[in-house]
C-alpha cells in the first residue's frame, strides 16, 4: 500500500503520511486501521483533552467521543488542509471545550490529579522540534507581549475561560476580551492569512 504525500508544512512527525493513509482506510470502515490510528495518536489527543478537562471521567468521555467522531468523519479529512494529527486534535479539543463550557468555566486552580501546575504549562517556544507551521506561529507569538502570549497559551492548552484568565491576571473580563481580540488580530496579520 502506498501513502500520500505529506501535507504542506506539516512534516513534523515521521508518521504523518502514515497517519493520512490510516485515516483514509478508516474512512472506508477499516477497523484495524482505526486501531492502529488510536495506538499512534491516543497519547497526543489525551494530552490535549486532559489538560482542558480536570475531571478524569469527563476527560475519558470526551476522548472517547472524539475518537467516535474521528471514525464517523474520517471521510472529511483533507490532507491539503492541515496535518492529520492537527485535524484529529481539533476534533478532540472542540469536544473537550464543549464539555468544559457545558458544565462550568474551567478554573485554573482546579487542576487534574497528577498535574504539577508548573510542570504542565506548555511552552511552544521551548519545543525542540518544530514544523514549518509551528515555527511560523511561534515567530508571531514572540511578537506579542509576554502576558498576552501567556493568555493565549492558557486558553489554548488549558481551555481557560475569560473569567479564569481575568482572575489569574487580575484584570477585568472586558480587558481580557479586548486583549484576546487584539492578540488574535495581530496573530492573523503576522501569519499573513
Amino acid at each position, binding site marked *: 500500500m502506498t501513502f500520500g504525500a505529506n501535507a504542506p508544512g506539516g512534516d513534523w512527525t515521521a508518521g504523518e503520511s502514515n497517519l493520512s493513509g490510516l485515516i483514509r482506510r478508516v474512512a472506508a470502515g477499516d477497523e484495524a486501521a482505526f486501531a492502529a490510528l488510536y495506538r499512534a495518536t491516543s497519547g497526543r489527543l489525551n494530552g490535549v483533552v486532559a489538560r482542558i478537562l480536570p475531571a478524569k471521567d469527563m476527560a475519558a468521555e470526551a476522548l*472517547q467521543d472524539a475518537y467516535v467522531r474521528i*471514525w464517523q468523519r474520517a471521510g472529511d479529512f483533507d490532507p491539503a*488542509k492541515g496535518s492529520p494529527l492537527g485535524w484529529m486534535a481539533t476534533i478532540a479539543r472542540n469536544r473537550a471545550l464543549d464539555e468544559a*463550557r*457545558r458544565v462550568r468555566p474551567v478554573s485554573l486552580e482546579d487542576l487534574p490529579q497528577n498535574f504539577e501546575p508548573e510542570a504542565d504549562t506548555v511552552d511552544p517556544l521551548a519545543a525542540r522540534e518544530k514544523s514549518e507551521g*509551528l515555527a511560523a506561529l511561534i515567530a508571531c507569538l514572540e511578537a506579542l507581549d509576554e502576558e498576552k502570549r501567556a493568555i493565549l497559551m492558557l486558553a489554548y492548552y488549558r481551555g481557560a475561560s475569560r473569567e479564569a484568565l481575568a482572575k489569574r491576571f487580575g484584570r477585568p473580563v472586558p480587558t481580557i476580551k479586548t486583549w484576546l481580540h487584539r492578540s488574535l488580530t495581530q496573530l492573523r496579520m503576522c501569519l499573513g492569512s
Partner: protein
Amino acid sequence: MTPDDDLAAAEYALGTLSPAERAVIAARRLREPDLDAAIRGWELRLQPLVEAAPPIEPADDFWPAIQARIRAAAPAAAETAPTPESLIADWRRRASRWRLAAIAASCLAALLAVGLAVRETQRPAGPREYVAILQKDAASPAFEVTVDLDRQEFSVRPVAVAARPGKSYELWIIDPRLGPPRSLGVIDEARRRASLAAYDRTVVEDATYAVTVEPPGGSPDGKPSGPPVFVGKLIPVGP
C-alpha cells in the same frame, strides 16, 4: 461576515467564548458557510500548537469502550441534510444491531448461568430507546431527541437548524399531566445528555417535545417566550 464575526470565530476556535456565545456560534455555523469557514481558518492557524503539547497516555480501558461504541453506531452515517425518514431508518438499523448484541449477550449470560442456579432476571418488556425528530414540517428536521428509558436520560442534537443570532433554542416537554410546558434546558452544541428522572415513564413516552426561540441562556421566567418553532413526538426504535 462582519469583523466582529471573525473575532467570534477566532474566539470560538481558541475556546474563550462564554457558554451562551459558544452555543450561538455553534448554531450559526451550521447555516452560515462564511462563519464556518472563518472558524476552520482559525482552527488551522492555531493547530500547530498541538505539536508542542506532550502526550499523556490514556487509561487501558479507553480503547475497548471506543471499539464498542463504533460497532454500535451506524457506519459512516451521512451527516449532510438527512431526512426524517433516513434518520429514523438509521436509528432502526442501529437498534437492530443493539438487539443482536443483546441476544448475543443474553446467550452468553445463559451459558454462564448454567450450573450456577442463577435465576435469570428479565428486562422489563417494552421498548427502551426512543427518538423524536423535531421539525416545522415533514421536509425540515431541525433537532433529534433521543431517549434512553433505562438510564432515564435524553440527548438532543441539532440536525439542520436556521441561525438565530443572539438567541438560544430551548427544549420543552409538554403533556397535560404536567400542566404548563416544562423546560428541559437550552440546547447548545455540547449538550448531549440530561436526566429525565423527574418524569414518569408514561409521560416521557407520550409527551410532545418542542423547541422555542429564547433570549440567550434560555427563557428568563421558566415559561416559553413564544410558540414552539419545532415539535415532535417520540417513536420507539430500540429493543
